[in-house]
């Protein structure tokens, strides 16, 4: 278990998440992609903390913050999805094609 290995795993998770976020039609699936990217980020943060910081606690703090970001993203995301669904009856991205001039 080396830092490089961990970071490559993190990169793989991030790439999968990127693919998901770009390719999925459903809002919920899109958010899953975002979560997956944050998953990779979390892993990378912990990896950096464990291998390059001599255990400086701020590294863990960063991971905690990443988790907080995930929570925020999820909460606001679902609230938006609910709101959009109520107004537009849309649960896929193509359902709100009005985001243009």
């Amino acid at each position: 278990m080396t830092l490089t290995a961990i970071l490559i795993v993190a990169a793989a998770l991030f790439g999968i998440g990127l693919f998901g976020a770009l390719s999925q039609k459903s809002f919920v699936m899109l958010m899953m992609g975002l979560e997956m990217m944050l998953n990779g980020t979390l892993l990378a943060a912990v990896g950096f903390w464990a291998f390059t910081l001599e255990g400086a606690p701020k590294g863990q703090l960063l991971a905690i913050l990443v988790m907080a970001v995930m929570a925020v993203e999820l909460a606001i995301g679902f609230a938006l999805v609910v709101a959009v669904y109520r107004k537009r009856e849309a649960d896929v991205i193509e359902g709100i094609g009005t985001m243009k001039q």
Partner: protein
Amino acid sequence: MGRIGGTGMTDLLFYALSALAIWSGWRVFRVDSMIRATFALMVSFTSVGGIAVLMAADYIGVATVFMMAVEMMVMGLFMVMFMMNPAGLNPMQMVHQYKFSIAAGVLGFVGLATAVLLTNFPDNPLPENRDTLRDLGIELLGGSMLIFETAGVTLLATMVGAVALSSRRGRFGDSDAGAAPPGLHPGGEPAGRKVEKGGGHGGHGGHGGHQMNMEKTKQDSSDDPHKGHGNMSETEA
């Protein structure tokens, strides 16, 4: 670092968990069932949490599992609420710009991996026998208390915002009253662009399907979402 068994054991666990994390992450976007996708993601998170525990980030790892389980639970609920085909009865591929996304994902991975491989990282590993949990606690309520509290306030604001966004009706009218243009005449149709109906969304057959309870949805399988699933297979590259 060998916390569980010897170094070899740790490596073995790491590779297993990594493989699981990546594989389950991949499955998230390949399975037909929404629930499977959700919980595949949860497995991925859990694996990452396990890797974190292997790296002596006990609290982070366990908390990841703890939080992600709850999050994925919620996500699963929404999945079932919003998505047709909760059980994955039919093969389904609800994707757009598919090839581009694959390219972007691959490119992202390759780029990051290249960067990782080409970079010479400093080597300052975690000292043995360091009480990381105590460190974290002291840090959270000591030096970085402001950050921690800010995160807390942010979460609180998020809660308030989420409630405000998702509430059907607030004290001063509809939740989106300010966002809609006024009517052309009192009480009339809103001015401006009409909402585009449909638009790549064949799912619920429209007509306020979200108000149907599950019972009815299950019973009315004749004109039900499931029927439309077939033509959801369209791929927008």
